[in-house]
């Protein structure tokens, strides 16, 4: 029975699709995203994951992945859940977050370092939007300037753009997701679209109602609405690190030279501080030694005749001035 129903509905949907576009490309637009994180994420990372999952109705949230070294298991997982995109958050040392954006089974994979991360919860922005409404994706033109950014853009369109007719999606559009390249990083912002009617209503009111009646669309005429944006959150900045040819495997076809690992930064910071300390202690020891040597001299003099003592004092003074 269900099979019959399915066949009927399939035929219907196919017919409806044939009206505007052919079925082939539409199938290509069908996206499903597997959203998951590794173990060892902090609460902020988890909240970010939740926020993104709320914004992506075509996403499938899964339990934390146990491994950080064998990421190729993700391909099987995606296959299991019938997903053709993976959004994998990898947390390291409970502070660094990396985002893997992949296109299983054989598409490219991009690894990002996530920083300047702020979740919806902590941002207190007044914007809000429907859960499951489709966003307008706004891309910076510099995404098309270099091939690696073009690949990243394509992957982002796939995973962040909610496909038409996705299962839990709503038919209205009320938010924008903007992706901007600045300083070699990708900045992501989410805004709500606020439509406000302008006050010049008295004159056009009758016309508007007439238009509404005639065109049966519930839209107010375009000239009358003013669009403004309210930020919703979350905010994050992604630094691309590598692009792999395969999905969680294969040769590396792009590597960001400018990327510096947070580990290196931390180590450098610590080393600098250690150096300071070492210098200070070395100086201290050196001074001790000098003092000791001089004290021996003093013993030999034994606080005897004043002349010797003065000479010693003068020598001491010179010594420390040199320092």
């Amino acid at each position, binding site marked *: 029975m269900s099979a019959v129903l399915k066949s009927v509905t399939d035929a219907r949907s196919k017919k409806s699709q044939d009206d*505007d*576009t052919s079925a082939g*490309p539409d199938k*290509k*637009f069908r996206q499903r995203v597997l959203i998951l994180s590794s173990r060892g994420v902090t609460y902020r990372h988890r909240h970010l994951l939740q*926020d993104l999952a*709320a914004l992506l109705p075509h996403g499938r949230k899964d339990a934390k992945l146990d491994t950080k070294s064998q990421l190729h298991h993700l391909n099987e997982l995606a296959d299991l859940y019938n997903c053709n995109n993976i959004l994998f958050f990898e947390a390291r040392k409970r502070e660094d977050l990396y985002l893997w954006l992949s*296109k299983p089974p*054989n*598409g*490219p994979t991009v690894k990002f370092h996530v920083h300047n991360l702020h979740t*919806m*919860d902590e941002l*207190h*922005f*007044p914007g*809000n939007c429907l*859960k*499951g*409404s489709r*966003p*307008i*994706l*706004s*891309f*910076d*033109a*510099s*995404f098309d*300037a270099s*091939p*690696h950014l*073009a*690949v990243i853009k*394509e992957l982002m*369109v*796939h995973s962040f*753009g909610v496909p*038409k007719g996705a299962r839990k999606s709503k038919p*209205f*559009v009320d938010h*924008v997701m*903007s992706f*901007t*390249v*600045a*300083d070699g990083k990708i*900045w992501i*912002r989410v*805004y709500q679209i606020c439509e406000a009617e302008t006050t010049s209503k008295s004159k056009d009111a009758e016309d508007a109602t007439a238009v509404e009646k005639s065109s049966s*669309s*519930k*839209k107010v005429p375009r000239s009358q609405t003013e669009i403004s*944006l309210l930020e*919703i959150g979350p905010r994050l900045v992604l630094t691309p690190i*590598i692009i792999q040819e395969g999905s969680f495997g294969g040769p590396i*076809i*792009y*590597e960001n*030279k400018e990327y510096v690992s947070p580990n290196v930064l931390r180590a450098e910071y610590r080393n600098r501080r250690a150096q300071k300390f070492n210098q200070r202690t070395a100086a201290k020891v050196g001074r001790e030694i000098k003092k000791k040597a001089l004290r021996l001299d003093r013993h030999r003099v034994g606080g005897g005749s004043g002349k010797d003592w003065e000479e010693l004092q003068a020598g001491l003074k010179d010594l420390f001035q040199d320092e």
Partner: protein
Amino acid sequence: MGKAKLRQILAAEKGKVQYLEKQKKLQKEARKRKRKHAEAEEDDDMEVEDMDVNGANGEDENDWEDESESDDERVIDTSKLDDSDSDSEDEDDDDEDEDEEDDSEVQPKGILKASKPTPVANGEDDDEDEEEDDEEDDDIPLSEISEGDNDPDADIIPRQKLTINNHPALLAARASIALPITASTPFAVHHTVTTTSPVAIKDVHDDLTRELAFYTQALDAARRGRELLLSEGAPFTRPTDYFAEMVKSEEHMGRIKERMKEDAARKQASADAKRQRDLKKFGKAVQVAKLQERQKEKREMLDKISLLKRKRAGADLGDENEGDPFDIAIEKATKDTTRRRGDHAPNAKRQRKNEKFGFGGRKKFAKSGDALSSGDMSGFSAKGMKRNSFGGGGGKKKPAPRLGKSKRQARR
């Protein structure tokens, strides 16, 4: 030599960089040679002892010294050939390495001794080959050498990242996953807007300009998307009676609203406080001025009233001023207030004297009492007398107790 190459290839396949080992060995040999030369010049016996300690080849010592440099190098080469495998296995252990070298050096020296003229030529050939090999090996990037170097004291060579940016591969990867978006594809299918020109942000670290750039980009996208969707007849605006779950829950929005209210209240409070502070700064001066003004007004009013009263009294006695309007009388009265003592005009004699000597007259008894002042009882009241008298019946208020010395001095 063919065998040597084969071994090299094998080693390379194993992932070992033979060049490194060779270099290490060369260094070691050089060090040893130097030391030996020095010792040879000093004392032969010492040398022997030293070698005994070092390894098994004490007998070959003297021959070893006589050999030419090219021979030495040959020796090194062969030794490397003989135990390249073992060396690769224990790179780190220096002592073992030395022993093995010593062992290996024994054999070729024997050969050299036996047939001296021919091997020299061979050695030269070998040298050439070696050089070729070296050239081949030189292609290894610096970074890899620095990796393999275990000497902690050696200068740290900064490891430079090799850039990978494989354009064709990237383009291919993109092409393999690209969505078939063409100009004819309806916007409702893909919902993507790309700006016409790259977004330029002057200073990324300046929050305001950066966020503004993002905002304008998103706003443009929203406008364009809206236009396109409306032109395609796709739904855009959510009807007011369409309710559905939102991304942020009611509770969350409530929290946000509360926070906004709090913020507004805080702003208001701070503005109020600021105004108050400003007022306080000038308030004192304003207050003093106001008080003074009020007192002045009061005084003037009282004066006028008293004068009026007096005038009235005068009018009752003799009606000279009856015809005059009210105001003029007041004016005249106010003019007269400048005189201190009584209103009576000076006598004729005085007037003559005034004319003669000028106004003012003598000042000598100006402050002494006269009939009029002694007759003035306005300052007297029975109540007042009672209050001020010691042990008087009234005595409600005690005189203020004498203050402490410091207070009294401060008051002065």
